[in-house]
């Protein structure tokens, strides 16, 4: 799949990035945290799922968060997206503090600013693929025709346009997940969050999905992906390793020493081994 070169692709219109005063667009900071932490009050003792996270994500980043089970990576993703309430620290998204916003304001923010892909797709079972995409799209665009046209463009982009009028139960896992990806992109979000997007897919379907994510990133979409899959992690240009709720290491994969996918995979594997993965 070569989405970047597709002649049918219509560029996504983005609003002017006003908050970036001096940096170039691709280096513009879109999300920043300071001393971010989340503590769950367990039955006996409190559990610090995330602690002391200082993080900056730029528009050109495909950030991958890795770590062993229980390291806090999914918690971090939900905190950054406002779906989980933090215990302490700050989060700034598009130059706006979001840690003190109400649930309603966060929901309104997510309409245009964030897109989500989950491990389990979570498509509404008795709506068609097209309708599943239109549902969140209608929150930002009341023009039915324009909305449907954009939805079809996305589906065509992801090579599932012919499946637009099918129900999720009539699709394979990979097709459903690509549909979920189209749903996440319908409102041209600033940030795409993906939580184990290939977790429920077989290897070939997973590769197709990762190809889609890579292509979308190449078009300028910022992506934050949580995964424990090394192959998936190599698609990112920046990998964060978490242990015990903290980011203990960072590796960039867009240097000159990792020109190929295999090279990136080897480099990443070596680094993760050092991290204790």
């Amino acid at each position, binding site marked *: 799949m070569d989405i970047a070169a597709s002649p049918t692709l219509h560029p996504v219109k983005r609003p002017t990035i006003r908050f970036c005063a001096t940096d170039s667009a691709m280096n513009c900071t879109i999300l920043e945290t300071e001393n971010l932490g989340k503590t769950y009050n367990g039955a006996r003792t409190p559990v610090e799922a995330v602690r002391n996270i200082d993080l900056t994500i730029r528009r050109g980043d495909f950030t991958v968060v890795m770590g062993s089970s229980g390291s806090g990576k*999914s918690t971090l993703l939900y905190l950054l997206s406002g*779906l989980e309430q933090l215990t302490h620290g700050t989060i700034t998204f598009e130059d706006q503090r979001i840690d003190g916003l109400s649930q309603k304001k966060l929901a309104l923010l997510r309409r245009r600013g964030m897109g989500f892909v989950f491990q389990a797709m979570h498509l509404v079972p008795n*709506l068609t693929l097209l*309708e599943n995409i*239109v549902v*969140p799209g209608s929150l930002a665009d009341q023009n039915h025709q324009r909305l449907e046209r954009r939805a079809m463009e996305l589906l065509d982009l992801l090579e599932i346009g012919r499946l637009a009028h099918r129900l999720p139960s009539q699709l394979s896992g990979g097709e459903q997940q690509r549909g979920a990806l189209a749903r996440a992109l319908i*409102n041209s979000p600033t940030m795409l969050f993906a939580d184990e997007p290939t977790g429920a897919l077989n290897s070939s379907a997973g590769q197709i999905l990762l190809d889609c994510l890579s292509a979308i990133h190449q078009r300028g979409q910022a992506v934050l992906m949580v995964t424990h899959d090394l192959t998936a992690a190599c698609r990112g240009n920046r990998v964060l390793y978490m242990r015990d709720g903290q980011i203990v290491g960072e590796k960039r994969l867009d240097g000159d020493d990792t020109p190929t996918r295999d090279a990136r995979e080897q480099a990443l594997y070596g680094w993760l081994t050092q991290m204790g993965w």
Partner: protein
Amino acid sequence: MTRGHWLLVRSFLMRHKLRNGLLGVVIAASAMLFVTSLGVISGVDQPFETMFRSQAGSHITLMFDSRIHDPDEVVRWWSQREGVEGVQGPLSFVLTEDTVVVDGRDLGTQLWLAEVPLHGLSQDRPLVVSGGEQSAPGPGEIWFPSSLATSQGIQVGDDLTLPVPAGTVTLRVSAVVIDPQFGSVFFNPTRAWVRGGSLPNLFPASRLDGCLVGVRLGDSGQVDAHWQAFTDHLGGAFSGSPVFYSTVRAAWLGTSQMIGSLLLGFSLLSLLVALFIISTTVSSSILADTRLFGVLEAQGFTAGDLRRIYLVTTLALTAVFVPIGLAFGRLTVAAAMTYLLAAMGLVDSSAPFSLHALVTFGVMATAIGAAVVFATRKVSRIRPAEAIRFGGSVKTATGWRPAMRFASRLPVSLNLALRMLLVPRQRALLTVFGMAATSFALLFALNIVNSFANMGDNLGNWGFDGAEVRVMRSGKRSMLTHEELQAHLLEQPGVRVARPMAMLVEGAVPARNGLVSRSLFGTSVEGDLSTIGFQTLSGRSPRDSTEVSLAINTARDYGVSVGDPFELFLLGQPIEFRICGIYQSFSNMGQGFRIQSSVLTAMDPLFEPPMVGLVLEPGTDREALIRQLEADLGEAVDAQVGDLFVADTIAALTGAMSAAFAFVALLFLLVSFAAVFTNTRMDVQEQRQVFGILKTVGLTPGQLRAVQAQKAGILAFAGVALGAALWALLTPALLSGLFSDIGLASFPLTIHLLGSLLVVSAVIFLCSFAAWLSANGIARIGVRALVTE
């Protein structure tokens, strides 16, 4: 609401078609019951008003002795009064001496006879409903009242044998008519019409002193004011029997309004159950869709959006199913009205159904909307991340775990049913509450109807005497004296008590306590009233000529109680009594009095009680006694069973109530079935992992279905027990509140024990069956249910 919102509404509606369909049935049933109750309450009102207006009914009917009040003077006074639309009369008016016979069958009731002039009547016009178009009865003919015709099965062409002083005379029923004044089944005796000029041929002049004047007012609300002015003009009480518009109206509408009020009560109960079902279903749906809600919030939907979607979804169901309920309600209202109006002899119900339908729709939409808003408040508490990652937290089994020493003796399905009894707690409570409401309604309905149907076994508690046989003296046709009759009756084997009585003793209460003077019909008894079955609510029955017992509503109206003085006009003379007791009485709407016959004898030495009531020894054959008396005494007496009138009068009322309550019972059972069916479906869906595990370890689908059926049965049992307890506690107060206006302060409830047991058993069985039926989805649960989660 964006297109996305509407897509989700459609998704929610289509996703659980069966559950939504059952919810719709519940909504439709409640709407049907509600609109039916409104229709019954108001449905007779308009036909009555139309009938009364079209037949120019009199708002005040004066029945008096022309020797006491000058009829022409009475007519003149009323005619000159401002606010009076018309005055009719004076008309001759006679009460038959004995009961009438139709085609050889004794009706057990006397009749007032009035004349229809050849040119017809200007007021109180009888409306011919069968018998062709005539302006008056012909020679040898009689117009018969529709109320009595319906209950006795009398038709045009039947021969009526009237007792007259000279013997009997046969008149042919040439028409069945609606009498605007006395046409209700609660008026006894009622009125029949003969040709103008016939009465002097049938009765001697001494019997023709009865006079009837009808007054029609421009404003029916001014009856009391006009009457007060009239009695002031007379300088005291009116020595006669006035019948006021309010009494006529209450007699016509009392039955339907009582039934309608009961139906309204049931419909509100049904609505409450429906709201509880809806609320519980919505809560369960939210629980099941928690993960979806988290995903939707991630996409930008707010909690308010999600609540709005649920509200619109439920209101969509309301918009579809309430009209369906209203459509069926239109049929039930029509059927109920046809039945009630026919029983009352009225025709052509024109109840404003569209208004009732609008009110019903508004009430239901508002109530359902409020229930949904309440039930969806928990949506605001959903934490998106938790919802996406972990879904809704389905509570694990928190039922009762039987002790091991018992558990091993119980079937495994019963063990599991007990263990899962309160899973989830809210739906379990719904089942208990729903079955409590259903069993309450069924027990209430069954035992009210049973009480009315068995009134004959319990007459004293209803305010009637308990005479098993009544012996009426045909005085003028024989030389049999009162003492001779009494002696003869007491000599009969099987006769335990013989009490001379006079029913329909005419009295009048002078104006007092802000109330205008009014007539009262009472009963006089010679001897101990209690031996003939008369009972009191407080105090006792009169023992001497200084005492009177009053019917409950008479006492309430005048604000008197036991020990108070009370003045009554009897035979035109004022007599001061002391109230010795208060009794309840179903007849005459709880109005009346009881005195000793010595009171009347003191005023009129020639007075002799016209009737003797007999109480028999247990096992005495009533019919055989009656035949013996007629053989011994011939035409000197007329003997009949004691509760003849009651049975006939109450039959129509019992029939109407039975039909209404059967309808209510069916609806409640339908709603209960739908509730349990829906609950079980949701249970199976939420617990599919548990059922999957149980199947894996060896339980059969049949055993698992039995778990659901037994769980429902246990909850239904708890609900039935609660409903029965509430019924036992609340029914006396409810019934007193409902029936006190018609004279029953303490409703004499007769419990049908077997029927009650059958009813509650049926509720439990229906619940278990509904659960069994609904749990067929268990068979489709497989190991995959464990894996995909």
